[in-house]
């Protein structure tokens, strides 16, 4: 069967259909504007639910059966439990026992703890994953072993896909650290506390059936009700839904690597010299060691200048919470909490606000706040000489990471990628990235330990940094230096088979990933 391919706006060849569904190739940033009405969930009637509000079902399996689980359904989960999630694996084990086939798993992200799901991918219980395929799942997918084609979306794209009706969630299973029998739920209390449940918001609002699973059932009302019971069909109480020390780790630390600290320091200095760190500014702080230390360096600069940030976008952890409590940051708008300090702060501090992809990232919102951010710090596995960047595959072709909020954050005013020039001999700056996840026009600054490249589109920044002592170079100079050190890598070869599609924030396809050649 021959599939028709079309070149998209960043020059990648995109097939006309994926998993039997038609595909719209990426048309450029902000170009694709669908019309009509958003997808709507089924009408429900409260008369069908117990008047006393008790929606408890004895077991998850029973709840899945009641929800009508059957072949070909789409089942969603969230990733607020990170590597401590016990529920996703459980769901698909049950489905396998029931002999159900061809499910689509729609997680907001996957983690190494979900590696056992490979069993259900192998035997056809799961047809494919739409979400992220990290680590072992990515390796499995890259080898062409998944039945269908994986679809990767950003956090915002996940919300958009639901609102477009591109994805219809049949059953949403929402692991909830605390819930009441009516289905109100939150992430701030209980042994599996994870802070918030924002990634499950779309699932609760749009899924046909919503199951809340908790290991901390309390009497109505569960306050705060981050998830409203009014959306919930069934509530299940279980012994344990997550492994606390893997959900939040007390060990998120700023990096000790002198090279990364150097990059972090250069990044902070760049922002300062470019005039980006000023009273009332805003920044997004990532969770990686380098991003964390950039936040700490920002703090030092702010203290010295006697200024405050209006808000910081989390992933929050101790470092950001300390800044909030010190008064350096007025608000944290948080997408996920990474440690117990984050959870505590979210629970107690009204200035530490839980957000969802709807408020922060949704393409079908009437605006979203990603674009309001002054400074956005992101990572990448590769960047090309046109500033296009890759976050999902490695240079050897393997799909190993998800997109997360990365694409959505590209809409910030100043997008900075602090990255090493090479990792274990592999140059990070390439002629062409293996997979395009974000178009270069949205990426402003690349900071490496050997030099900083400013996107030529940002003439204002180039101007501001004209007399800087920082090593400002062109992206071509950086690429040359990387290749001088590492040698020029051979082009990676792929099989013909497409194993995953990379969606842009608007639902169009920006690139595809092919099976690795071994």
């Amino acid at each position, binding site marked *: 069967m021959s599939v028709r391919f079309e070149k998209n706006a960043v020059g990648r060849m995109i097939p006309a259909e994926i998993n039997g569904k038609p595909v719209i190739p990426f048309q450029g940033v902000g170009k694709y504007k669908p019309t009509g009405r958003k997808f709507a969930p089924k009408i429900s009637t409260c008369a069908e639910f117990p008047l006393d509000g008790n929606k408890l079902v004895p077991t998850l399996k029973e709840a899945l059966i009641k929800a009508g689980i059957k072949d070909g359904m789409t089942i969603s989960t969230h990733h607020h439990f990170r590597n401590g999630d016990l529920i996703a694996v459980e769901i698909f084990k049950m489905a396998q026992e029931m002999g159900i086939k061809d499910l689509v798993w729609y997680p907001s992200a996957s983690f190494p703890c979900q590696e056992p799901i490979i069993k259900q991918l192998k035997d056809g219980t799961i047809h494919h994953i739409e979400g992220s395929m990290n680590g072992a799942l990515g390796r499995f997918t890259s080898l062409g072993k998944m039945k269908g084609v994986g679809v990767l979306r950003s956090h915002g794209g996940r919300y958009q896909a639901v609102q477009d009706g591109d994805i219809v969630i049949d059953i949403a299973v929402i692991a909830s650290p605390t819930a009441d029998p009516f289905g109100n739920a939150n992430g701030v209390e209980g042994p599996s506390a994870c802070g918030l449940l924002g990634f499950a918001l779309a699932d609760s609002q749009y899924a046909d059936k919503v199951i809340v699973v908790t290991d901390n059932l309390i009497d109505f009302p569960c306050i705060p009700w981050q998830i409203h019971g009014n959306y919930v069909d069934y509530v299940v109480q279980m012994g344990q839904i997550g492994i606390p020390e893997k959900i939040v780790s007390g060990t998120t630390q700023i990096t000790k690597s*002198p*090279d990364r600290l150097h990059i972090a320091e250069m990044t902070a200095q760049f922002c300062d010299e470019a005039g980006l760190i000023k009273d009332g500014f805003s920044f997004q702080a990532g969770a990686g060691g380098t991003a964390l230390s950039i936040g700490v360096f920002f703090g030092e600069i702010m203290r010295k200048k006697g200024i405050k940030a209006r808000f910081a976008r989390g992933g929050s952890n101790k470092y950001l919470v300390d800044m909030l409590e010190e008064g350096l940051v007025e608000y944290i708008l948080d997408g996920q909490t990474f440690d117990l300090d984050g959870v505590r702060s979210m629970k107690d501090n009204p200035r530490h606000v839980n957000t969802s992809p709807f408020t922060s990232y949704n393409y079908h919102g009437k605006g979203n706040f990603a674009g309001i951010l002054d400074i956005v710090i992101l990572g990448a596995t590769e960047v090309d000489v046109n500033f296009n960047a890759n976050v999902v595959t490695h240079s*050897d072709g393997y799909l190993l990471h998800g997109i997360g909020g990365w694409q959505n954050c590209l809409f910030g005013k100043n997008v900075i990628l602090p990255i090493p020039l090479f990792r274990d*001999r592999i140059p990070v700056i390439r002629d062409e990235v293996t997979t395009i996840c974000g178009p270069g026009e949205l990426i402003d600054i690349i900071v490496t*330990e050997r030099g900083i490249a400013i996107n030529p589109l940002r003439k204002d920044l180039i101007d501001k940094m004209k007399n800087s002592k920082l090593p400002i170079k062109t992206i071509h100079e950086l690429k040359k230096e990387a290749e001088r050190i*590492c*040698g020029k890598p*051979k082009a*990676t070869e792929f099989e013909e088979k497409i194993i995953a599609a990379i969606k842009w924030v608007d639902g169009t396809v920006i690139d595809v990933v092919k099976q690795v050649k071994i």
Partner: protein
Amino acid sequence: MSNKAVAGNKGDSIRSDCYVELELTKKDGIQIDLQSKVKTLFGDSIIDLCKRELKFFGIKNCKIKIEDFGALDYILAARIEAAIKQLIDTDKEYLLDLLPQNKYKTEKDRYRRSRLYLPGNTPKLALNAGIHKPDGIILDLEDSVAPAKKFEAAILVRNALRSVDFYGAERMVRINQIPKGLNDLEYIVSHNLNLILVPKCESSEQIKLVNEKIEEISKKKKVENPIYLMPIIESALGIIKAYEIATAAENVVALAIGLEDYTADLGTQRTKEGKETFFARCQIVNAAKAAGIQAIDSVFSDVSDMEALKQNVLESKSLGFDGMGCIHPRQIKIIHEYFAPDEKEIEKAKKIENAFHIATEKGLGVVSLGSKMIDPPVVKRAQRTIEQAIDTGKLKRSWRNDYVG
């Protein structure tokens, strides 16, 4: 000789290195077994390098297994050479091109505030050392290299001198103690080396031996750039002989002190207050200054305590030291900042430099400040203070524009 040899490092924490097992065989040609985390991208290039190198050493039949953890060419080549040279007797050296940007000389009296020690057999630490801008980078063949690894370290250090960009830092090697260290010189002298650290130095005789060997190699290999020496005094005897050592040769540019070994020699413990080493440190400073060279302090080993490092630097500077060793790149900035002149020193230097400037403009041969004549060395020191102040961001380069004397 045996027909099997190994070189390099392997294990979970190993990066930018490789482990080579070589077995010479009688027939069947070259058989290469490559396991590499960068095989897709660099597999062909690694195999190619391996074949060229084996051919260079005249090896026609062998089994070679390379476990690669992202090693760069110069590292791979060094490991392969180290394995080969355990099995065949040869004077040949497999040299990669010397990076053009590494061909620089240094001045006898340049800054030597910070010198960063790198273990000679741990390649991953060397790649990025230069970006942290220490005044000097030391590839160490002495204490940081295990006895069994000395041979492969010398080859790796040689290759690093040729292939790693030092980004302008003074290119230094610490050799082993004399006489053993004399053998190290063969590997390093002809690769645009700037300075050799001579550890546990106890006599001018040792300096002479080093210089004789340098001269011999320089003649043979046509080395033209100057190679300076920094003896490290690490014993009670060395302290007594400090001045003799400092004046042993023209190319001795600095005298350093190593306090760990020195306190061991005294039979005492190193303390935070450092009373037990006060005499030795003063002796080094005095001997160095008497000889007209720089005095360099020991390393500060608690890499997590930056406040204590700062105090250490301030004390060191107050005793008259010009710099100190460091074992972590994060120490460099603190060392530079606190060895840098303080406000008073800068103000004084500005006055002198300004007087010099005016005298030069007027074509006067003599510089004077008020009623005092100023000697050229004083002007030079003032200029250096100004440079340091500019370098550490304490003074604008254009300071004279708004200078009111």
